């Protein structure tokens, strides 16, 4: 509960200005809180006279936390391929494990492990827990979730990290709920708190307009999904040694009430949008499928993926899986090239954390230029063909 010391409150209104939820107002010179309050604490931090306090955060530790130790990374492996985010997780996991002086382990759930455990070791894992079972040939939330849950109960890691991918965001909440522990979604930064070794998980909220740092250190394991392309993978070292532990899961735990009948691959895509380093994106300014052929050509030339604004998707020029923004995907590539996109906030929230943003738009006042690293005012139909030509020439020279 938020407590307001009415003697200390000077009615300055700083708390009101800092509240994202419209939950605190100065009425007759004194702050008043309403039902919107989520106890996020933003007002407490803003108060310069110490009039605000949140009570009830004295959390009890549920069980003996010291029996949980080690950092785990869920190694996403699908259709014969390790998801690149797994390597990134091993990179950040290695750092956390070294800081805490504990082992870093990867968990592999599959029907056929092959040389994947060795690869995971080369990227930094000290141990690889492998469950090899025919029922894991297809991803199902129940079988994958139960397997990871059972391993966690048995081996008691203090931290479990997974990619914020379609798979990670689908089954990791199952594991966290079953273990009755905290889970932080889509993190972009992970740190260890000096005083108590707690995992500090930083993530964008409100579509990236606000960053929040979240802790869940009174329960174990501390769990987080991590946004792809944000963490750095280590260079693999084939000479690294690690331990591979083969585990069995009770057969009844690998039963799924959801059955996968069929898989249809995304058509016409060379590069997966979530994993692409370069994204070339088009909006209504592209004026149709013809325009998107230019986008596709440039993307292919740069080894990048194709994206679109909602306006372009709604017009039927690109299929929905390519939509970036509030109701589409969130991407953070090294380079995002926005062509003929106005930069409505609903689009910006899906791409504004990209390292470099190039905007091409004929309207010099388009809001996309507010987030751009490089801006080009001009007509995409003049610029893109020339640009493609120029890059081709330079490449062949």
């Amino acid at each position, binding site marked *: 509960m938020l407590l307001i010391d009415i003697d200390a409150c000077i009615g300055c209104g700083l708390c009101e200005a800092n509240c*994202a939820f419209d939950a605190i107002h100065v009425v007759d010179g004194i702050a008043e809180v309403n039902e919107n309050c989520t106890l996020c604490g933003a007002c407490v931090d803003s108060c310069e006279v110490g009039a605000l306090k949140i009570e009830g955060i004295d959390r009890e530790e549920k069980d003996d936390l010291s029996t949980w130790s080690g950092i785990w990374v869920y190694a996403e492996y699908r259709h014969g391929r390790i998801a690149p985010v797994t390597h990134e997780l091993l990179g950040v996991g290695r750092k956390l494990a070294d800081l805490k002086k504990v082992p870093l382990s990867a968990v592999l759930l599959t029907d056929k492990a092959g040389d994947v455990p060795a690869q995971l070791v080369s990227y930094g894992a000290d141990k690889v827990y492998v469950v090899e079972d025919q029922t894991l040939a297809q991803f199902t*939330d129940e079988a994958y979730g139960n397997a990871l849950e059972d391993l966690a109960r048995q081996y008691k890691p203090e931290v479990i990290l997974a990619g914020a991918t*379609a798979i990670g965001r689908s089954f990791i909440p199952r594991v966290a*709920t079953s273990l009755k*522990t905290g889970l932080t979604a889509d993190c972009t930064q992970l740190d260890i708190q000096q005083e108590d070794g707690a995992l500090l998980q930083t993530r964008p*909220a409100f*579509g990236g307009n606000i960053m929040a740092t979240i802790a869940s250190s009174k329960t174990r394991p501390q769990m987080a999904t991590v946004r792809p392309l944000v963490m750095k993978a280590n260079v693999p070292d084939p000479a690294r040694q690690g331990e591979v532990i083969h585990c069995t899961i009770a057969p009844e735990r690998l039963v799924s009430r*959801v059955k996968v*009948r069929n898989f*249809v691959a995304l058509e016409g895509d060379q590069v997966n949008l979530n994993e692409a380093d370069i994204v070339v994106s088009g909006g209504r300014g592209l004026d149709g499928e013809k325009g998107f052929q230019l986008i596709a050509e440039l993307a292919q030339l740069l080894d990048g993926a194709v994206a679109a604004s909602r306006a372009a998707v709604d017009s039927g020029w690109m299929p929905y899986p390519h939509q970036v923004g509030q109701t589409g995907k969130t991407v953070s590539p090294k380079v995002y090239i926005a062509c003929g996109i106005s930069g409505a906030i609903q689009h910006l929230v899906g791409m504004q954390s990209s390292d470099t943003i190039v905007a091409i738009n004929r309207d010099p006042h388009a809001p996309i230029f507010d987030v751009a690293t490089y801006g080009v005012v001009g007509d995409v139909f003049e610029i893109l063909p020339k640009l493609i030509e120029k890059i081709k020439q330079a490449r062949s020279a």
Partner: protein
Amino acid sequence: MKIIVCIKQVPDAKDVRLDPKTNTLSREGVQSIINPYDRHALEEAVRLKEKHGGTVIVLTMGPPQAAEILRESVSCGADEAVLVSDRAFAGADTLATTYTLSQAIKKIGGADLILCGKQAIDGDTAQVGPGLAVRMDIPYVTCIRRIVEASDKAFVVERLMDDGYDEVEVTLPALFTVVKEINEPRLPSLKGKMKAKKLAITTLTAADIDADTAQLGLKGSPTWVVKVFAPQLKGDRTMIEGTVQEQVDQLAEKLMEWC
């Protein structure tokens, strides 16, 4: 078929912004809206009802003013509305939210199908759907983009994956979270608006849903916010000027350096 749609009232993303210079929030006239994904969940529920018969109940956990989105949902085709509201729910993270929602759903007699949005645009967690299914001990499928077959006993749906989509089969009762590709939500009808006006909203408190208070709100939440701050903005932007050819030359040079 009894369908429950979980909906959430959220602040419109475009209104919420932290000013990085003063670190204060500018939220001039923050609008509260139905979480955009939840509109698609509602629309799918109403379409299923129209085709197969049944009832659509919208359910939200939130402050009293969340009743607004329940009325709006009824004007778009929902039959009944339930508001779960209690000061004890304040500060709930996804674990406490799924506990509260599951208790409420048990109280209203369960459902054949529960539909949620893929994620809420304020917290962006996408965790409530899966967590709720676990609490109810029913199977779930996230990010569905199409219902291929539907019957009283089983559904075939397409779930969106990073590399394409899976076609999956699931027995009822079940929970799905939907992406916006699944349908185009309808606008409120005149008849719906009339109905919404007269609608009696069932309000449930913590006591009504037989909740264990230790699992509610802040107390029942293993995660908590340590701090909030403004994202770091990129350095100043550079405009690439000149004739079209000059612009292209500079841009090409940069792109080849990066790519």
